[in-house]
């Protein structure tokens, strides 16, 4: 699955991620992993919308043992990755915070919800994040009950 995300397109923010999650569920990915993939995609999608110069791509690949989510943009790049990963650190513009976004939890949430997380970024060139989410055998293994 591959989606093109437009910078500043708040109106559609999260729609790609919702589709990703429902598609993963449809093809039989366990609920726990599908949900985490949805969250990772959502945060990555919102980051592309709020911070990228010209948007980017959000893609998801299903492998036998894992779901891989990748988000890529061509700018502006992150100056200090460690700082950007710190919960609570935010460079969000006012139009984003007015809508309840940009609280500085995005990258930290992505990492928290991934089993493997990589991020590369260069100023002026762009940022790529790659997340591996290991699939669980039992669809309900990380839940109590449910319907």
């Amino acid at each position, binding site marked *: 699955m591959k989606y093109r995300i437009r910078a500043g397109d708040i109106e559609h923010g999260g729609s790609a991620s919702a589709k990703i999650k429902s598609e993963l569920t449809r093809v039989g990915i366990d609920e726990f992993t599908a949900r985490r993939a949805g969250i990772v995609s959502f945060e990555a999608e919102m980051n592309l919308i709020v911070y990228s110069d010209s948007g980017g791509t959000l893609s998801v690949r299903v492998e036998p043992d894992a779901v891989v989510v990748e988000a890529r943009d061509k700018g502006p790049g992150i100056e200090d990755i460690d700082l950007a990963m710190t919960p*609570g650190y935010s460079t969000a513009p006012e139009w984003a915070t*007015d809508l*309840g976004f940009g*609280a500085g939890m995005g990258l930290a949430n992505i990492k928290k919800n991934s089993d493997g997380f990589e991020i590369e970024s260069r100023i002026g060139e762009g940022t790529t994040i790659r997340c591996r989410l290991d699939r669980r055998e039992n669809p309900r293994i990380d839940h109590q009950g449910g319907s």
Partner: protein
Amino acid sequence: MKLTEIVGQLSLDLFTPISDPGAAVTGGYSGDLLSHVLSSALPGNLWITIQHHANVVAVAQVTGLSAVLIVDGKRPNDGVREQARSSGVTLLGSTESAFEVAGRVRELLAAQR
């Protein structure tokens, strides 16, 4: 109900000293949107929020709130605490969620009537 009583009953953290120990809490306000606090919260209200940056202090001061109660274990940094202290704004904390804190505060306020 006095702010000090609420602090005691809920074992809240004090990020600043209580600036007016005799202050009565007029009600509770929950929410994270600063513009809404400005338009809707009443003087003397106890503001329950997850926000903990410098703007929170300014909003609390302008609105005349009795205190800001920061939830989910979030902690304001030293700069924010200092700003609160010098503006006479009281910052409190709880490790519980916004939902629970609102529930408990309302329980206390309701018992007073």
